[in-house]
């Protein structure tokens, strides 16, 4: 298991933020920041650190507080928004979003963040506002991911599937989008499709723990219990304290 490396995290964060506007091959950092349902291949270690090791949160908070004091540029703003999102500082999140948008009203990254937040709060109409005019090619897959979620939330699951598949074509390395697509397959009991999709994801993302977990679910749903068990056991080695994994292995054993 990789230990949480704060320095590396911050470095990668800044590095990615700096090049977000210039590198089309880069997977947008927005999705890296969603600890609940958005995943990135590059920062997921850090995210998992926060998720599974709450004590590391403090260090993020320190960075957040220092940055907030010296907030000047929109780029810093975007970074702060991501941190605020991670840390659940939603009041700050909105304040900083306003700050950034006043300086860069067409900053699509920020709008995506706002849309995520809106969706998190069940406000699909609001999320619609933020995403309806997004056109950035570098953020294409992220935007499509979000639109897919909005459609799904509004009950248009098939439309959501279509949008997400389109998004995956644009960027195969979009972890969050891949996860969401797989979950919707599972939702519609399309277990074979889910299995295929998650298998390919685990190949693409060597540290895609969530993808591995959901692959296990797809196996289990098709009564391929051995395969499911194997995956869960491996994960337990990585995250021995995870209660979910423990419950799951019990269920499979039954």
């Amino acid at each position: 298991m990789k230990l949480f490396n704060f320095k590396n995290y911050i470095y990668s964060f800044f590095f990615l933020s700096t090049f977000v506007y210039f590198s089309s091959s880069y997977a947008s950092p927005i999705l890296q920041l969603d600890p609940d349902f958005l995943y990135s291949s590059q920062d997921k270690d850090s995210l998992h650190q926060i998720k599974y090791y709450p004590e590391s949160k403090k260090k993020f908070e320190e960075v957040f507080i220092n940055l907030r004091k010296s907030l000047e540029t929109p780029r810093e703003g975007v970074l702060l928004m991501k941190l605020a999102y991670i840390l659940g500082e939603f009041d700050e999140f909105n304040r900083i979003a306003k700050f950034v948008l006043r300086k860069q009203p067409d900053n699509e990254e920020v709008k995506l963040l706002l849309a995520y937040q809106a969706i998190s709060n069940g406000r699909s109409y609001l999320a619609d506002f933020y995403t309806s005019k997004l056109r950035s090619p570098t953020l294409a897959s992220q935007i499509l991911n979000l639109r897919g979620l909005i459609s799904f939330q509004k009950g248009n699951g098939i439309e959501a599937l279509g949008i997400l598949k389109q998004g995956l074509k644009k960027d195969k390395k979009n972890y969050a989008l891949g996860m969401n697509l797989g979950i919707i397959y599972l939702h519609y009991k399309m277990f074979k499709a889910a299995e295929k999709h998650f298998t390919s994801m685990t190949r693409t993302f060597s540290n895609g723990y969530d993808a591995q977990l959901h692959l296990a679910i797809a196996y289990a749903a098709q009564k391929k219990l051995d395969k499911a068990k194997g995956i869960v056991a491996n994960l337990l080695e990585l995250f021995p304290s995870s209660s979910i994994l423990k419950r799951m292995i019990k269920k499979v054993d039954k």
Partner: protein
Amino acid sequence: MNFKFKLSVIILTFLFPRVFSNTLLGQSQERVTADSLYGNLTSPGPMDYILYFFQSRKEKLKGQSLKTPKDIRKVLLDSSHKKKSYSELVDLLQTAFDDYLFYHQKKVEDYLKSQVTWRAFFNVGAPPGFGRIVDKDHSEDLFEEFRGILEYLIKDYPMEEQSPDGYYLAAEIYLLLDPSKSLELAEGVLKLFKKSQYNDRAKFIIAIIYTMDERLKNSLKILKSLEKSNDRDIKNYAKYRISWLYLAVRQGEVSKLKKKKNTIMSGFSSVFVDVDDAASSPAMNYLSSEAKKDAVMFLGDISSSEDARKIFSNDEKYLTLALERVAYRNYRDGKINEAMNMYQQVVKLDKLSLLAVSRHGLLLDLIEERKQFQAAYKILLIMSQRYLSESSAWKKFHKDDLKLIQSANNFILKKIVDLAILLGNSSYRKKYVKDRLVKNMASLYFKYAIDIQDVSNQKKMISFLIKEGQFELAANIYFKIAQNSEGKSQRKKWAYRSGLSILDKLHRMQGDIYHYRENVQRIPAIGKKILKFNELYITEFNDESVDQHMFSSGEILYFYGHYNDAIKYLNKLINKEKGKLKYRAVSLLLAYYAHTKDMKNGIALSNIVLNDPSSFDKSTINFAKEITINSKLNSANDLSANKKYKEAVSLYLDTLEKSPNNLKLQEKIKSVFESLKKIGEVDLQEEIAKKMIAINSKSGLSRFFLLELSYLYERIGDIRLAQQYALRYVNKYSKDKDAPTMMYQAARYTAAIDTLESSAPLFFSVIERYPTSSLAMKSCIEAGEIYLQIGEKKKAIISFRTFLNTRGRKSKIDVLKARSALLYLENRIRTGNEKFLVNLSDDLAKSPLSIRDQVGNYFQKAVYSFLKKMIDNEVYNGSGFIKDVPLKEYFKSKDIKIKMIEQIFSLIKKTYNDEYIMAGFAQLGRLWKEFERNLKDISVRGNKDASFIKTKIMQAESKYKFYFSNAFDRLDSEYAAYPMNDRVRELLTDYFPERMNSKVYSVLRPIYTQHLIGID
């Protein structure tokens, strides 16, 4: 001959002093009548005679040594007359008198030059006055000497020693000094020397003195006796005088004169002499001309043109006079046409234009008495043409002739102007004269005025010309006057200014000045003339009105686009301390600087205006303000061009505060706003928009900015403010074309940030307020969906119904949605609705996946609700059928219904929404469970259909187990989050307790559903 000359001079001087003065001073009189003018002509002309008198004496005495009065005095004093014989003394006196007259010859000539002298000379009326032309120091003494000698001659010498020549000389000299003494001496000559050679001459003196005393008949008698005189001169002169006296005595008695026509004619002809004779005998020539003049008068009054031609066959001048006189008589007698014909002949003959004098009277009469304007005009026209054609020939005339001609023409001119002015009156013009006539006259008068340099008439003419609209001609006269005036006189100044003022008016009237843009680089002739004379005035004078002329030139140059030259003039005015022209110059220059965008100078001038606003008119102040604003705008524009938007906007808004109604500025701010929008400068956009909304511009820009501000807030994610401004827009401009959009947006904003409940009325109000707008349809669906979501069924029905019933452009998705939603909401089971469902299903099946999925939710809801209703119906009414209807038949009908229900259920299965599939399974399970219960209630014992019933019970059991299991499986796994779950769970608990009791919720569910937000 000397004697004759002296005699004539004396006689004429005594006889006609006033007549002379009348002739020469006629122009000075207020009113000259026709008769008085004719009188002038017929009176003996003194001028020719007197001049000729001195001329002849000069010729005669050529080569002789002249004696000064001193010499004469010396002769008289040194030679004691007492010691000299009478005859010697007479000779001495004769010589001294001749010399005396000769000595004063030059002085007389000088006096003759001026009328004043003539007046002085001829007004004396008495012999002492004669001495006035003599040097005072000597003349009186000299006369006293003469007197002494004469008295000595008469008294001191005894009668017998005296000779008739001495007596006669005394009579002659006393005619000057004392006419009564002269008469006494003349009578003495006749008495003392009966056969003297001086008798006839003495008689003549007596006749003259009788004439002076108006004893005309006595005079006539003496003259008649002289008709047979041996002295040819006396004889002829007597004849002539007789004719003259006939006329004088019989004046007015035409018939009597006609009888004596031949006598009178011969009397006049007797003194007519040939040209050769006249040259040798100037005095006779004089008498001849006098006689001819009198003959003319006579012919004119009494006789015909034929007679005139007879008498004056060799003398064109007098023929002309005579014909003219005849013409006048015709005219006087009312024979106008004859008179006109005669005048035309006269004009052909008249080379000197002297007849103009006579025509004054005619014109006056025609104009003032008879109102014969046409006739007067014709005469004037003839005269003016004559005048013009002959004017160059004047130079050859004698200066006095010329003077007379000029004075006469002057008079004509005056009358012409009077007539023209009279004709210029509209009433006369309409009645008598056409415009063309007046214009012709105007141009002729102009030429006159230029030539004669008569300012008073020129003035009249100018006023006439102005009245007739001949402004340029009028101005030209003024300029001529100015050029003819010397030095820096007031008249010159006046003429310049008046001319320029007329031209200025004309210039403006022609409208050039208002079309200067088309005439740039081309100043019309009038403008050039104004410039020229302005310049002349400026260089010649240095008074207050120079400013006026500088401004005028500046203005013209400015309006014709010669800006640099214009600025030179205008700048001089601007540097003045005060003055109306300064302010006007400032206004013009301001316009120029604004035009050329010369902000530096423009601002400097604007400051002058704004620092002293009371001196300027509103438009200039506005101009200055505009320039100030424009300069600020320019600075602001520069700033914005250099991307210093913050400073630029601050300057724009600052300017806007000072000039809130400046539409140009507002437009500019709008364009800056657009650029800011492109580059995403939010704060500045917000600042501008709020300011513009606050000033509430009438240009409609506040509306624009309200709209933009709303969109701006949407863009930066501040939906709350976007909503506020959208609502403000709708409230304020509810009838605006963008109002439906803003209303729709406001509803969307409300749905996004407030509750759906509060947004639905807003959507609905789009339909109510703007039913024809394209957004109304969209709003119907949105409102319906929201009402559906929040459970306001009635309102949802209204919305969807309104959508379907309203004409407009509708998307297929929306139509299908509305149909499905209505089916669900109205929830009626009736024949046909099944068909409707099937049709809807077919429609959906044919639609693309994207449409199918979007409508699917509504469709499933609709189908499920239909299905549930049918099942409810079956469940609640099912037992009743079994009792009354034979069992197999019952089942037949039941099967059909169940098949239909299953068919409808299959429609749900076509969709991907497992929630409704689960619920549908549960409902079908319920149907079969109820069916099974009812079958179990029927007594099997003794029933012939017992086996059939058993089979059916088994079938029902397997069916409901199948359906419930399916429902249970879905409930157990991933569908726990669906709203239908509770209902399904209830059903299963009621009808399927054996499985529900053993239900263990999957540990897996939260793991993969937790990532899908909004499901729980």
